């Protein structure tokens, strides 16, 4: 540990990464290296018909496939000027919540929790607490099943298209899913309670700016604008003025800063931005002892636990409202789409934070420009700063290596999404 330490690979995260911390002259320096190969999605969609884009970009990520699908749909609907009916917005919000709950659940219970229970991973957890793991898996299946009723499947959702949904979900199926989710709220609460009661290290990253999606109804995951701490509301297209994206040498993930400061996105930023008053009942009860704003990156896990319960409750509510509407009036889940030139930015709260998709559609409906900024891309610089803070506070401690790995996991990075930029140097001889 003399001059530095390398954690490779960081385990129990989505993708491949390495954390490298060096210490010289009393100043720590951290590099978070994303090792996934560049994916070139922004290049792949160029020249393609805009209707194909959501379907292609859904492949960026397995866990948050739906977020990429929906975010690209928001961007393209803005670009070509499509207004969708209210039922579509509701169904999308419910689907987004199901995805968030599923991601949070798996991350909290299987990937992060073992750290604080003195266990080495989910397999050991399954041996030590089989009932807990079974409960988690039951809940996960129920969430996936509910999402299937709405969007076809949770990974690569086939029913989501620009303009709405390919087909109308059956009211019986919606109702059944809503009832099942409502029954599972106590189970979700039990899992969340465990995550809330674990003791986390304290840490502070100075100069951070929280970024979250604003607008939408209550504590929602879809919205119309961005809220940047210390700056205010940003219209989606204005992100280019404030967020700066640059390629770095040590990683395939670019560095994003807001006015020079590290940005944090994710459950903690959302909870700080939206507050607890709009949370669903059980989730609000869980959050009652929490003092906002949360500044400790490890508190992201608590925020996730609260959001997970909130999502189960709210999705159940929206599904039952949709089922009623479907019975009484029938749902309107599709609107016509015509190719038009235009530029649009979509913002969405993916499970791991703010996701931004930006497209320019040319005449004839072909995509001319694409830019995608994922939550992990935004968080990676913040993670480096947090690692430096942790390293300087705990340098020399034998547990530092474990603590750094826990810190990375508290961010729940998704590296397949983040790998993005590649610096190509062409030497002319």
């Amino acid at each position, binding site marked *: 540990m003399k001059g530095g330490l390398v954690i490779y690979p960081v385990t129990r995260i989505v993708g491949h990464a390495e954390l490298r911390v060096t210490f010289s002259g009393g100043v720590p320096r951290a590099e978070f290296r994303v090792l996934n190969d560049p994916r070139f999605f922004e290049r792949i969609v160029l020249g393609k018909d805009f209707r*194909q884009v959501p379907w292609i970009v859904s492949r960026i990520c397995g866990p948050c496939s739906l977020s990429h699908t929906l975010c690209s749909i928001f961007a393209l609907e803005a670009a070509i000027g499509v207004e969708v009916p209210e039922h579509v917005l509701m169904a999308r919000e419910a689907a987004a919540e199901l995805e968030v709950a599923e991601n949070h659940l798996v991350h909290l219970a299987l990937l992060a929790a073992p750290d604080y229970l003195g266990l080495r991973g989910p397999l050991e957890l399954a041996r030590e607490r089989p009932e807990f793991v079974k409960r988690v898996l039951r809940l996960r299946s129920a969430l996936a099943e509910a999402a299937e009723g709405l969007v*076809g499947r949770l990974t*690569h959702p*086939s029913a989501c298209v620009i303009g709405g949904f390919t*087909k109308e979900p059956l009211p019986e199926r919606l109702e059944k899913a809503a009832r099942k989710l409502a029954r599972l709220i106590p189970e979700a609460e039990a899992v969340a309670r465990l995550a809330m009661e674990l003791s986390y290290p304290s840490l502070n990253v100075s100069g951070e700016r929280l970024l979250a999606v604003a607008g939408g109804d209550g504590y929602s995951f879809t919205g119309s604008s961005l809220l940047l701490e210390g700056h205010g509301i940003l219209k989606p297209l204005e992100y280019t003025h404030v967020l700066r994206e640059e390629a770095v040498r040590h990683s395939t993930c670019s560095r994003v800063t807001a006015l020079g400061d590290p940005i944090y996105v994710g459950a903690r930023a959302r909870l700080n931005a939206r507050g607890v008053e709009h949370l669903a009942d059980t989730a609000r009860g869980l959050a009652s002892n929490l003092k906002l704003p949360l500044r400790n990156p490890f508190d992201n896990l608590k925020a996730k636990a609260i959001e997970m319960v909130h999502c189960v409750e709210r999705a159940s509510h929206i599904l039952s409202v949709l089922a009623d509407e479907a019975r009484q009036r029938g749902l309107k889940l599709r609107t016509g789409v015509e190719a038009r030139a235009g530029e649009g930015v979509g913002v969405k709260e993916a499970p791991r934070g703010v996701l931004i998709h930006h497209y320019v559609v040319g005449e004839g409906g072909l995509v001319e420009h694409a830019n995608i900024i994922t939550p992990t891309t935004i968080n990676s610089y913040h993670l480096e700063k947090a690692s430096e803070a942790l390293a300087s506070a705990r340098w020399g401690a034998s547990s530092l290596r474990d603590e750094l790995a826990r810190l990375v996991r508290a961010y729940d990075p998704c590296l397949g999404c983040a790998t993005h930029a590649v610096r190509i140097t062409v030497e002319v001889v």
Partner: protein
Amino acid sequence: MRVVIDGIEVEAREGETILEAARRAGIKIPTLCHIPGLFREATCRICLVELKNGRLVPACAFPVSDGLEVRTATPRVLKTRRMVLELLLAAHRIKCWSCPRKGACLLLRLCKELGVEGIPVCAECPLPEEECMLAQGEVCLGPITVAGCDAACIREGRPCTGCRGPVTRRDVLEEAVANYRRHGVPLSKVLEALSTFCSSSRAYEEVRRLLGDRA
């Protein structure tokens, strides 16, 4: 008498076959040609199992004897079953879109279990021939895409976009070309759609060559 199947002791009756004893014990052995009470000629050979002496015998016809030791899923058994399935497929006329088994294909189920490719998504498509996406004017890649997804997209009302990659069997492709022609879907559109997910695969090149001649 007692026989040992996959390490499990099973009580068996005189004159029974390995298959009957195994099924009673809840051990699954795949069958195709075997129809109880009607056909037990053991012609398809998909039910081959391995005896202790290394012999491969058809479980549906081989009689049990006391102390017989059988293993139903050794690497050798699985390899042979895959080969048997490939041979069956080679002689099979793959016309899934007009097959009465559509949506419930036994061969496809075995292909999935054993990891054999060759059958297109049409085999698991829930739509009958007259409601086929192609008949509705959509560019559906079902006829040339490897099955195994349970036709997820078609079930959600959108055409197949070929994300599982193309089938490269010439006869399947030729049938597909005839089918696209019949429904007036231009092959250039088919190739364009295919390029979304597999433009860099060798299979794509193969398909392009085959379809390209006719495009």
